[in-house]
């Protein structure tokens, strides 16, 4: 391992070469037929720790370095702030001013606040967003809450993707005064059946042994890869979920960006699978069909 040039990891393509027998499919080390779209990024500062890339400029430098074509960016401010309109305005401004065309803002909707509907309208009509992001475990509601159903209805009508953050940090390492357990997903299938046009994507979902086995059967439910783990992690994920509904997500900058890329490449996926994972599934989610 120590003979592997760490510098080679600065390129997402060469990350594969570094850890996969120093040999990777031609499509990876050469002209890749896909662009990497990261569906799970946050801007600004994590409340409990300074992260190595938690300024927008640093993060965009990283995107350039790792050849990430586009990242869907939410805001860490959305977890605890209650002026969510301001949170989303700052996010959009940061993406426009510093994003170098690589950041796509994803607004926060806080269903516990009065007039969340106003924030939703602003995300869609003023900011022209294609997706919004929810944090039920920080905003203190369950998925059988009628407001969640109403949001699904409105997002389905507006053609907005709903990104649902299942977790942001392992419960076992969280700050004692900021404990937020993973979102309970049991009510989700029924809610989505009631709103069949809604598209929902789970971020940072990590199935547990006793977890819900029926989630992959729910139409229009997508999942990202940020917390896929284990020797057979990706292979298992792609056996469990329809491959067309698994999308690359890094959870950077909280998680190490390179880790997400190495995990994807260590899985020995075919070029077609990598194309779907890194690019096509994400494009389809936003309505850029085939």
């Amino acid at each position, binding site marked *: *391992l*120590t*003979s*592997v040039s*760490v510098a080679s*990891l600065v390129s997402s393509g060469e990350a594969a070469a*570094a*850890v*996969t*027998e*120093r040999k990777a499919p031609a499509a990876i080390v050469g002209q890749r037929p896909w662009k990497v779209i990261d569906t799970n990024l946050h801007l600004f500062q994590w409340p409990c*720790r*300074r*992260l*190595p*890339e938690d300024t927008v400029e640093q993060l965009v430098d990283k995107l350039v370095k790792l050849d990430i074509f586009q990242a869907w960016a939410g805001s860490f401010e959305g977890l605890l702030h209650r002026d969510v309109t301001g949170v989303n305005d700052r996010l959009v401004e940061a993406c426009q001013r510093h994003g170098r065309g690589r950041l796509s803002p994803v607004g926060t909707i806080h269903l516990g606040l009065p007039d969340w509907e106003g924030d939703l309208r602003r995300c869609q009509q003023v900011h022209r967003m294609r997706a919004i992001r929810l944090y039920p475990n920080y905003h203190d509601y369950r998925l059988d809450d009628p407001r969640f159903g109403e949001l699904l209805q409105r997002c389905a009508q507006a053609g907005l993707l709903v990104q649902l953050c299942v977790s942001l*940090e*392992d*419960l*076992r*390492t*969280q*700050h*004692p005064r900021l*404990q937020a357990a993973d979102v309970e997903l049991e009510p989700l299938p029924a809610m989505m059946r009631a709103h069949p046009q809604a598209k929902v994507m789970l971020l940072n979902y990590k199935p547990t042994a006793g977890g819900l086995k029926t989630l992959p059967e729910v139409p229009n439910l997508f999942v990202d890869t940020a*917390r*896929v*783990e*284990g*020797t*057979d*992690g990706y292979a298992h994920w792609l056996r469990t979920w329809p491959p067309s509904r698994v999308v690359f997500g890094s959870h*950077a*900058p*909280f*998680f*190490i*960006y*390179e*880790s*997400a*890329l*190495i*995990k*994807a*490449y*260590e899985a020995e996926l075919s070029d077609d699978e990598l194309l779907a994972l890194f690019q096509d599934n994400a494009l389809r989610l936003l309505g850029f069909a085939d």
Partner: protein
Amino acid sequence: VVAEIERTLPKMKKGAIERACIFQHVGLGTASAEVEKRLREDERLIREPLERWPSWLLGMIQINALHRERALEAIERWIADGPMVGVYFAGGLREGYPCSHPNFAPLVERVAELGGIIMQHTWFDTTNRGGPAQSTPSHLATLAGRYPEITFICAHAGGEWEKGIRAIRGLPNVWIETSGFDPTAGFIDMAVRDLSAQRILFGSHLPGRSLGTELGKVLAAAISEEDKHQILGGNLRRLLGPILQRKGLIATPPP
């Protein structure tokens, strides 16, 4: 175990992992009752992986200090007279003690006499679900403070690594191991700042974790190439030198 290693070997090759320490149950209350019974009935199950992959695997025994006399016997059998190179004090036990308990004293003293590695599972569980046998880095600091000449490895850096690093940073004889938690950014950077790279050992946590998660922590850290070399192999070679020499085992040469 053999089947699991066979499943994991391709990933180890991919990660260019030249040698790996495996933590083997030897029937001392660290596994399920069924597994424990089988291991006690047939010791070949314990020896087989090391005999099959002698140039790749280094064995360490998992022990529970609750069973002090049996643990001492196991140290004699498997380290003094057998193929193993150290002990792993396991976590997640149904019963046992944290490592500051007096039962640990004769065990670590004997392993140290033999030149073996002493690794302790640690976790600062913020949900308080660890149970009475859970050891934290603070427990390990208490134990290590009594033996400044013995090196201790703080496995998983306590999980909540910001607190874990702080708990042991004043004790030069305590090193940390890097695996077992999500690839949270900034970990290695802080560890090198507070401990120096010489007190950090890479762990893959295969097959439970991905290469990406564990290698990424070191490879992507903003530290020097030399520090990465030390963490990814140099430090373990240094630590293992005496016992490998005594056993006539070969340490892989540095690149």
